[in-house]
C-alpha cells in the first residue's frame, strides 16, 4: 500500500516536472539577416527613438563612456550582478539576427531569440503591455542603430539562479501577461499616462517595493522602492513632498528635470527626465496626470503644512536666516550640524539664486522628509556631477571634506530644522557603507540623456 502511494507520488512529481519543462521550454526563433535600413519607414524609426526614450533603454544598455546600446553595464541586484546585453544590430554579439517576432517575444515573454529566459532586470514584467505597434517602432529604431561588436559580459549569479530555467518558475509566480486595458471611467489622457508609465516607462521597477524574490509587491504599486542605491520615492498617497505635487508641477519637472517647488532630478531619475525630453508635451502631460491621480487630493492637514512651508521659503528668500535649532537648544550635535549647514551648505541652499543653478531651499526637500536618509547621504557625499559638454545643475560632493560623524550631525540638524522630524537612526552606518562602496550607489549628472563619460559613474567600477 505504502509502496504504491510512494510510486504514485514519484510519478506525479515526474509528470509535474515534465509539465514544467514543457512550460519552461521555449523554441529558438530562426536567425534572420539584419534588415536593411530602407526596409523601415523613417517616421517609424523616429517614433521608435521616442519610445526608446520612454523606456530609458539607454540607461541600462549603455555603459558610461561606452558605445550607445552596446550593453555591459553592471546592474547590482540582491541576487548578484547582472550585465546588460548588447542591443545594437550587430549579428554576432547584438540582436542583428533577431526578427521582429523574436524582439516582440523578448518584450512580452522575457525570452531571447534562442529561447533562453531573460532575467527580470530587463523589465518585461512591464513591457508585456506594450502594443504591437510600439514594439514595431522600437524594433525599427534599434535595428537602425550603429552595430557594435561587443560580447556581453557573463552574469555573476550563484547556483541555482544561474540556471535560466529557474526563471520560468519566477514568471509562473509573478508575470502577468496581456495587453493594456483602458479604464473606461478615466479620461483618455490618464489612460495614455497609465499605459506609458506602467508599460514602457516601467516606473514601478524603481518606485514599487520588491519582495524577497525580486518581484514587485502586487498590493504596493508605486508605494516607494529602490534603484541603483537611491530611494525611489512613493508616487502614491504616501508621497512625502512638502508641497504636494500638482499635474502642472509634475509636468514641468518631468519636462525640464527640475521644479522650483521640488528641486533637481538626481541619481537614476536624472536620466529619466533627460530621456523624457524627447517626448511630446502631450505624453509628458499624460504621465503627470496619471501619477498625480495616484497621489490623490492632499488632506487639509497637508495643505496647511504646505502653506507654512511656502511662508518659510518666502521669508528665507527675503533674507531671514532661521537658526532656531542651532541657538540655545543645548544639543551639541544639532549645534555642530547647524554650523556645518551655515558654513558649507547655506551659500547655495539659502541663497537667492533661482533653481536649477541655485540649491533647493531645504523646506521644500522631499529627501529630508523621506522615510530613510539614503538619498541625502548620496547627495552630500557625491554631489551632482556636471553633465558633459553643456549647462547643467551641479553640486560639489563632500566625501573628502566631511567624515561620517559630521555628516550625521548635519543630517540630524537638517531633518529637525527643515522637516521637523526626529533624526534618522542609522545615518552613521549607512554613510559608512555608502562611502566604502559596500552599498553601491550610481552617481549620475543631472538630466543626462545619454550615459555620460566614465568619470561621472564613479561608483560603477
Amino acid at each position, binding site marked *: 500500500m505504502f509502496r504504491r502511494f510512494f510510486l504514485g507520488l514519484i510519478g506525479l512529481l515526474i509528470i509535474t516536472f515534465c509539465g514544467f519543462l514543457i512550460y519552461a521550454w521555449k523554441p529558438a526563433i530562426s536567425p534572420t539577416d539584419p534588415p536593411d535600413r530602407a526596409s523601415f519607414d523613417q517616421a517609424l524609426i523616429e517614433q521608435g527613438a521616442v519610445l526608446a526614450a520612454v523606456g530609458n533603454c539607454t540607461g541600462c544598455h549603455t555603459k558610461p563612456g561606452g558605445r550607445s546600446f552596446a550593453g555591459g553595464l553592471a546592474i547590482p541586484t540582491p541576487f548578484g550582478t547582472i550585465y546588460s546585453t548588447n542591443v545594437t544590430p550587430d549579428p554576432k554579439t547584438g540582436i542583428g539576427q533577431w526578427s521582429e517576432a523574436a524582439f516582440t517575444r523578448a518584450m512580452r515573454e522575457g525570452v531571447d531569440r534562442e529561447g533562453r529566459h531573460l532575467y527580470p532586470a530587463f523589465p518585461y514584467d512591464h513591457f508585456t503591455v506594450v502594443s504591437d505597434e510600439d514594439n514595431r517602432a522600437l524594433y525599427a529604431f534599434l535595428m537602425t542603430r550603429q552595430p557594435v561588436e561587443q560580447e556581453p559580459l557573463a552574469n555573476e549569479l550563484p547556483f541555482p539562479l544561474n540556471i535560466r530555467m529557474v526563471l520560468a518558475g519566477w514568471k509562473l509566480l509573478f508575470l502577468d501577461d496581456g495587453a493594456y486595458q483602458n479604464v473606461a471611467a478615466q479620461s483618455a489622457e490618464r489612460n495614455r499616462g497609465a499605459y506609458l508609465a506602467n508599460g514602457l516607462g516601467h516606473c514601478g521597477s524603481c518606485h514599487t517595493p520588491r519582495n524577497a524574490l525580486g518581484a514587485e509587491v502586487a498590493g504596493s504599486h508605486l508605494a516607494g522602492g529602490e534603484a541603483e542605491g537611491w530611494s525611489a520615492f512613493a508616487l502614491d498617497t504616501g508621497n512625502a513632498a512638502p508641497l504636494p505635487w500638482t499635474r502642472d508641477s509634475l509636468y514641468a519637472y518631468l519636462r525640464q528635470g527640475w521644479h522650483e517647488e521640488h528641486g533637481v532630478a538626481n541619481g537614476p531619475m536624472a536620466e529619466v527626465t533627460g530621456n523624457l525630453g524627447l517626448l511630446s508635451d502631450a505624453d509628458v502631460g499624460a504621465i503627470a496626470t496619471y501619477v498625480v491621480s495616484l497621489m490623490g487630493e492632499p488632506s487639509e492637514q497637508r495643505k496647511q503644512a504646505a502653506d507654512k512651508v511656502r511662508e518659510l521659503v518666502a521669508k528665507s528668500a527675503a533674507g531671514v536666516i532661521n537658526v532656531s535649532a542651532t541657538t540655545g537648544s543645548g544639543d551639541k550635535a544639532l549645534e*555642530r550640524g547647524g*554650523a*556645518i549647514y*551655515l*558654513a*558649507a551648505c547655506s*551659500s*547655495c541652499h539659502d541663497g537667492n539664486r533661482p533653481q536649477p543653478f541655485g540649491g533647493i531651499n531645504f523646506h521644500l526637500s522631499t529627501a529630508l522628509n523621506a522615510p530613510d536618509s539614503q538619498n541625502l547621504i548620496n547627495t552630500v557625499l557625491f554631489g551632482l556631477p*556636471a553633465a558633459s559638454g553643456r549647462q547643467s545643475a*551641479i*553640486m*560639489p560632493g*563632500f566625501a*573628502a*571634506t*566631511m*567624515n561620517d560623524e*559630521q555628516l550625521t550631525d548635519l543630517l540630524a540638524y537638517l531633518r529637525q530644522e527643515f522637516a521637523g522630524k526626529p533624526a534618522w537612526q542609522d545615518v552613521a552606518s549607512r554613510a559608512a557603507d555608502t562611502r566604502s562602496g559596500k552599498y553601491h550607489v550610481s552617481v549620475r549628472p543631472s538630466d543626462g540623456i545619454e550615459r555620460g*563619460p*566614465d*568619470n561621472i559613474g564613479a561608483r560603477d567600477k
Partner: protein
Amino acid sequence: MIKLNVNGATHEVDVDPSTPLLYVLRNDLKLNAAKFGCGLGQCGACTVMVDGKAVFSCLTPVMLIEGRQVKTVEGLGTIDNPGPMQVAFMEEQAAQCGYCIPGMMMRAQALLEANPGASDAEIRAGMEPNLCRCGTHMRILSAVGKARELMKTASVAPTAGEGKAS
C-alpha cells in the same frame, strides 16, 4: 582656537569655526596660492588637498578639518627647489593668467598620488571639476602628463615645508 596642520606644520588660528578654510589659508596663514573664484565649489580655483584628496577650500569650514593634513601649492616645493608638479607646469608653460593654476596643480597632485600611473583619459576625467577661462586646457593636460613622468623618477621629490615648522 582651531588647530590646523598645513603643509606639515601645525598652526593655531583664532577664527570662527565656520570660516572657510580658504580664508584661513589666505588671510591668517598668508598662504596665497589657493584662489577665491566662485565661492560655490563650481570652478576649482580654491582646490587644496585634505588627507590626500582634492577639496574645494571655499566650501570647507575649518571646523571640519581640525586634525587633518592640509596641503597647498606652497607644500609642493619652493622657488629654489620646485617639486615635480611645479616643474612640469613651468616647463609646459601651462599658465596664461594663472588664476586657476594652483587649483589645477592640487587636483592633479591628488590624482597622481592616488594613481601614479593614471592614463591620459583618467587625467582628463579627473581634472574635470577645475575650470580655466583662458583656455589653456591642452597645456594643463600636458603639464599633468609631464608631472606624472617626473613624479615617477623623483619619488623622493622635494616636498618643501613638510615636517618643518612655519
